[in-house]
């Protein structure tokens, strides 16, 4: 379970987070929807304990990430918005590195590697260097390194950015599968379709604040609009920075 409470954060004059609170439950896919610059990435960075909030805190499975960031991070897998693979390592070495960072050693690590490589069907590229991988292959490696230690929580930041249709479908299947295993999945996006198709709950964020929370259907009902896109526009009062 992931939770942020009353986050306040400034970057210079700009108020990035303005008393932001939300939670993501186990066995659900929760989407954070907001225009570019709404504070989604900043809120996630505070949740990892990477940024210090001026007020408020983040909890990962009840661990305060502002107090014990390392303990909290052990409970999550992160799928970042920019993939940043080590081009000179092979896919297996890359995943193995992240497994070790999460404390997996020796045989335990090798078993975890074999499992995740089989789950994501990347056996054919496992021993190739990451330089030259397609965007879809990169996505799978990044997903594998986020899941290799079998975290209870998975956080994805703009996961489908730059992915082709096939890769997006694979990612959706993986997420649905993880949800059924009872994991807590939180992902930020500004792509409406993706959120509507996947999420059980949507948190609409605008200008560092929560504008609305609910299922896609609830949001449509509340705003009396036929589609999530229309609902979203009416909630934040503009359609700037949103992709259909």
């Amino acid at each position: 379970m992931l939770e942020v409470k009353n986050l306040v954060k400034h970057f210079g004059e700009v108020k990035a987070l303005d008393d932001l609170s939300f939670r993501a439950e186990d066995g659900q896919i929760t989407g954070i929807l907001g225009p570019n610059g709404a504070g989604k990435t900043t809120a996630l960075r505070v949740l990892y304990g990477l940024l210090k909030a001026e007020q408020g805190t983040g909890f990962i499975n009840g661990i305060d990430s502002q107090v014990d960031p390392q303990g909290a991070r052990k409970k999550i897998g992160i799928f970042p918005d920019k993939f940043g693979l080590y081009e000179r390592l092979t896919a297996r070495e890359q995943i193995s590195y992240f497994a070790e960072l999460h404390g997996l050693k020796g045989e335990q690590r090798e078993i975890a590697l074999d499992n995740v490589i089989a789950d994501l069907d990347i056996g054919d590229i496992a021993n190739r260097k990451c330089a030259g991988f397609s965007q879809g292959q990169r996505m799978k490696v990044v997903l594998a390194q986020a899941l290799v230690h079998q975290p209870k929580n998975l956080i994805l930041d703009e996961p489908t950015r730059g992915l082709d249709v096939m890769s997006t479908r694979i990612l959706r299947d993986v997420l649905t599968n993880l949800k059924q295993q009872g994991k807590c999945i939180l992902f930020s996006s500004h792509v409406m379709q993706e959120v509507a198709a996947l999420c059980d709950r949507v948190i609409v964020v605008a200008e560092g604040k929560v504008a609305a929370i609910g299922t896609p259907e609830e949001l449509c009902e509340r705003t009396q609009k036929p589609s999530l896109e229309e609902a979203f526009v009416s909630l934040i009062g503009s359609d700037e920075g949103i992709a259909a």
Partner: protein
Amino acid sequence: MIWSLFKKEFIDSIRDKRAVFAAMAGALFSPIFFAGMMTFMLEKSTSVDELYIEIVNEQQAPQIVALLNQGKVLHQLTPETGKHFSLDGEDKEHSKIRLTFSESFAENLKAGKTAEVNLTADYSKKETGDRVRRIKRIIDGYQSQLISMKLMARGVSPSVLSAIKVAENDTSSPSSKSALLLGMLGIMILVAVFVSSTNVAIDCSAGERERNSLELLIMQPVSTWQVVVAKTLNTGMFGVIGGTLSVVLTAMVIPFIPLHKLGMAFHFDWQLALTIWLLLLPLAFFAAAFQLATAFHAKSFKEAQSYIQYTIMIPVIVPMALEFSNYKHIALSYIPILAQQQAISQMIRGELESYTPLVIGSIITIASAVLIAKFIARSLKSEKVVLGL
């Protein structure tokens, strides 16, 4: 955990062929360059070139001609075009200087009258001055001998001719002449340590940030201290490899430099090489931490490269300035970089009195490296450094 981090950093760096090549080149370049420069300088300072001039009426002054030949000033007809001519199949250069003894030279000399000799040369050429002086010195030498003998034959002491004698005393001993050069050698080994780790340092800091993997790494359950220690160890390793190559190559190359021509007493045996190598170990990790700190605080890969270009001047300029100014102070033996440079230059000269400053200097260097690493670990907690804002 540090081992896992280090292992990955090392694999990542060793597969970066550009960084490895740069490290090797940095280490190999200095000893080879130094040996080449030394050999060139020694050849220049010890050998006297043959000077070809045209001597007209040689038969008028056979003794002077013999003296000139002794001083490697040789007769050769001026070539009609250009200044090159061939001698025994070899291409030689003619100075285009002509020395003409007058027809009555021998006669006048015998009679005690002034004998005339003409020296014709193009004085506008810069090398002519030296050459003319060389010829005149030989003729003057002959003249003063002749005068002394003539005075003695008339019962006058030749010392009446020299009311004042300037006695020149050259205090530069062979070893102090070589000291400067040997000091340079020490500096070059130090520079090798810095140069070999530069690429790795930039690549795993500013480079890793630019490839978007630094932020993800920091998001994992590791402390920034562990990350920095692993990166410093890896970068330092490359410095050690570069320093090792440099020391080994220096030890191999030095016997081939004709230092004996200058009468230099110069010890560079394997025991000395090992001591220098041990001194380089703490320095390599200091250099690593120092360069990592610089690169992490740059906004981009390019900015890091230009900053490090400047910081790498420090191990060159500061010791060089001290070497030239001959400034000495006890504190210098304890400051990182200077401590090693002082110790190496003293050891090469055989002037090292005690190992205590070496040990203390090394401990201070290691402590400084740890402090810098702590500083980097702290700065990696700021979004400014992690995100390059």
